[in-house]
């Protein structure tokens, strides 16, 4: 076992044998720092057995140098002066490991980002490099042979959100043989995609391509589908999460309900009185209802807010009668709390559309014939409130329709970002409206964003169909007529920037292409899962280019529109990526945790409990019997807060012990 020892006045006590390696990094370091001089200086430091400089320490020959010296010269401490440890500390640690030395007996000195890249004066830079190397050599004496810890990964996966993203992730994982819990807060899965009529650019019927996947989820033996449920608490760490799921009462016994909907027909309400959520309030539903015909699970729900039985307890309960022998209705059902154990979590909670009422100039909510794009999707959907006919609220057919792009997007007054999908869906709606009704259609856009595969070609197709394209952001939708032809119409005022004059275009129906926003409860949800949100409110990925589905919390992944506006192809790809990352973790079977954990000197701990609330990861608890604090090494992330906060300095952190840090400081300040 290599010994540790503290040098006193520069003498070498305890058999510590240090090797120092100074990297040129081509001319990156050597151009400013005299690396030969640093290496020679290091050779004279106490405890240093060998000191070399080399062009590229991170290369194979560079690492071989270290390995060779460890074996031939019986080195037991290594100092590498090179680039930032963030880049190559793992590389050099692996080199030590291959040579049979504990990888944590290494100290990396950053003489690139912190010396050669920030200083111009060569003499001063070299002197600084010397100081830093001296400090590292003194520190490395005190390094201990730490061990990484292995934690097993529970192969179960939790997928939160049952839209197309969650569905695809769940199916991929289930097909790989893993058990998946799919939790969805609505009574059915399907998400926003289930509301669409056709999807761009292929004009596939949304329900036709989605429902087979929904059915597959519903019937897959590897998927436990919990709809009308929400995650309320997550505890644990990567590979070992304990999740509490709240299951809201449908007042229907799921296993018994066949989805025949006899109860809905028999309900004492002759017709629906409550605005139907799925149809965005364009139609009404009864208190007992099936969200939409292809709902999965195909079970009805009873809404306690509007059901007479809940309000007065005096309903005839014709529904129960209609259900007959199956007796699937249970008014006494209560909310339940389930606890599950999973190893990885995928968040696929989707988006919400911009509230068009926030822009008062467009008249949403004031003029009945101003609709959002999502409302129009429901109108033209054959299973929608008007049976697929494009009818206004007064039952009339529109002769002219205006589609306004960028509502709630690309606007410093509302949302700065571009919502990515609206140009394409606006083109799609233009096509469908023109095809179904023959009305005059006007698209008011700023840029036509059609970047995906087949998207520009879709735009080309639209250009042949006689839709009017006006390049100009709409200033207002108004009902006051400046010209007799505008009487009784809604007038859209925009500058036709390509023609360079202002135009007023009277239409019967205005469609607002609303942008995408994070869900209203995104902040609350992200706290439950211990991840971050970006400043705009979307869930934060670990790296926007190289790690789009990972988060800063190991084991929790994000997929789909909850990470940022996305169309269906990208959401599905994202879902597959998240499933793959989860599978990678599961297949590794265990995860190795870095040993930078904190530990408590129990003799010094006074049981004051100051550290417990400081820990952001709830890794510290109080051991009642011993009346001392105790740290769960697996939860500890090595942030150092408790170390700094302990009033009696009873907590130390591996690799960053007080002695090590003080030795490094003294090393920098000592004059050679």
């Amino acid at each position, binding site marked *: 076992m290599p010994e540790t020892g503290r040098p006193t006045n520069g003498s070498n006590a305890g058999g510590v044998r240090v090797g120092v390696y100074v990297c040129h990094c081509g001319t990156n370091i050597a151009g400013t720092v005299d690396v030969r001089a640093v290496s020679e200086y290091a050779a004279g430091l106490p405890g240093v057995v060998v000191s070399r400089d080399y062009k590229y320490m991170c290369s194979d020959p560079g690492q071989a140098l270290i390995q060779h010296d460890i074996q031939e010269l019986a080195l037991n401490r290594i100092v590498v002066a090179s680039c930032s440890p963030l880049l190559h500390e793992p590389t050099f640690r692996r080199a030590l490991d291959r040579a049979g030395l504990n990888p944590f007996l290494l100290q990396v000195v950053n003489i690139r980002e912190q010396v050669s890249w920030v200083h111009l004066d060569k003499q001063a830079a070299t002197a600084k490099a010397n100081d830093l190397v001296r400090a590292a050599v003194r520190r490395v004496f005190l390094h201990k042979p730490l061990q990484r810890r292995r934690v097993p990964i529970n192969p179960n996966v939790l997928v939160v959100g049952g839209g197309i993203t969650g569905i695809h992730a769940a199916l991929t994982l289930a097909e790989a043989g893993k058990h998946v819990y799919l939790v969805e807060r609505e009574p059915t899965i399907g998400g926003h995609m289930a509301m669409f009529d056709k999807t761009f650019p292929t004009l596939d019927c949304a329900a036709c391509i989605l429902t087979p996947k929904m059915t597959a989820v519903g019937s897959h033996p590897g998927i436990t589908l919990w709809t009308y449920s929400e995650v309320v608490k997550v505890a644990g760490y990567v590979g070992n999460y304990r999740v509490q799921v709240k299951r809201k009462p449908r007042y229907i016994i799921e296993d018994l309900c066949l989805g025949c909907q006899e109860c809905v027909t028999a309900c004492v309400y002759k017709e629906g009185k409550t605005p139907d959520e799925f149809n965005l309030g364009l139609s009404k539903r009864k208190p007992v209802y099936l969200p939409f015909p292809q709902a999965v699970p195909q079970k009805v729900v009873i809404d306690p807010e509007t059901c007479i039985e809940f309000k007065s307890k005096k309903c005839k309960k014709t529904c129960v009668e209609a259900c007959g022998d199956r007796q699937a209705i249970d008014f006494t059902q209560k909310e339940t709390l389930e606890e599950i154990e999973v190893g990885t979590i995928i968040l696929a909670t989707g988006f919400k559309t911009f509230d068009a009422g926030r822009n008062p*100039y467009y008249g949403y909510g004031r003029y009945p014939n101003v609709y959002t794009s999502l409302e129009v999707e429901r109108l033209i959907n054959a299973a929608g409130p008007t049976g697929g006919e494009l009818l206004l609220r007064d039952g009339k057919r529109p002769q002219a329709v205006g589609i306004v792009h960028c509502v709630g997007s*690309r*606007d*410093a*007054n509302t949302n700065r970002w571009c919502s990515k999908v609206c140009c394409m869906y606006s083109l799609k709606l233009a096509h469908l409206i023109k095809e179904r009704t023959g009305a005059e259609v006007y698209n008011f856009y*700023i*840029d036509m964003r059609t970047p995906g595969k087949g998207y520009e070609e879709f735009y080309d197709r639209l250009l042949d169909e006689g839709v009017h394209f006006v*390049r*100009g*952001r*709409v*200033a*207002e939708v108004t009902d006051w007529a400046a010209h007799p032809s505008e009487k009784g119409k809604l007038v859209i*005022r*925009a*500058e*036709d*920037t390509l023609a*360079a*004059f*202002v135009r007023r275009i009277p239409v019967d129906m205005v469609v607002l292409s609303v942008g995408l926003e994070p869900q209203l409860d995104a902040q609350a949800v992200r706290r439950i899962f211990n991840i971050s949100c970006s400043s705009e409110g979307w869930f934060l990925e670990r790296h926007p280019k190289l790690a789009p589905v990972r988060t800063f919390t190991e084991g929790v992944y994000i997929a789909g529109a909850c990470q940022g506006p996305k169309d269906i192809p990208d959401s599905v790809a994202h879902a597959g990526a998240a499933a793959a990352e989860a599978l990678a973790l599961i297949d590794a079977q265990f995860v190795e945790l870095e040993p930078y954990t904190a530990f408590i000197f129990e003799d010094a701990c006074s049981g004051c409990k100051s550290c417990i609330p400081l820990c952001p990861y709830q890794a510290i608890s109080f051991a009642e019997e011993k009346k001392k604090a105790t740290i769960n090494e697996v939860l500890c992330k090595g942030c150092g807060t408790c170390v700094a906060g302990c009033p009696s300095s009873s907590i130390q952190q591996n690799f960053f012990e007080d002695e090590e840090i003080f030795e490094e400081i003294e090393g920098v300040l000592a004059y050679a």
Partner: protein
Amino acid sequence: MELKRTVKFEADRDPEFARWISHTVGGERIRHCLQCGLCSASCPLSLYMDYTPRRLMHLSREGFKEEVLSSSSIWLCTACYACMVACPKKINITHLMYALKERAIEERFYPKRFPIPVMAQQFCRMVRGSGRITESWLILRVFLRTAIWRLLSMSGLGWKLFRAGRMPARRDKIQRQHEIVAMLDSVAATRKELAL
């Protein structure tokens, strides 16, 4: 049929003008203009302008000084701020219109007897002289210098206003007029010193 040849060479641009508009108060974000046209569509006067506000922004930042300063747009702007409030890039369009007006007046880019600069100059003169504006005298002065015959056509209205006590004959003055003059001179001096 009159044919006009229009092609713009780089020599037709005035880089100093482009630089000036980006650095003047309110022009900091002019490079962000997407040319979406919301300003023109919000503007109640854009119907009459030869260059809509959107076009004017682009012409200004590209340095087409001639076109910009001889346009009717800058005189038609009533500074109602509808454009600025709507602009998705938060560009201070109204303020730029003021700056362009100021520069056009400075460099005399307007037809003779054009009422707006005349009104502006008479206004300033009256403030320097009395510290306050007396509307009746101001209108009189402007019409005398621009379109005398309009005085006659407006006389009916003028008489009605006089009868209703809304057109005082006396000039309104402040007591410490010297303060105004001192301040005006100070501004001129500081401006010169700081090269603003």
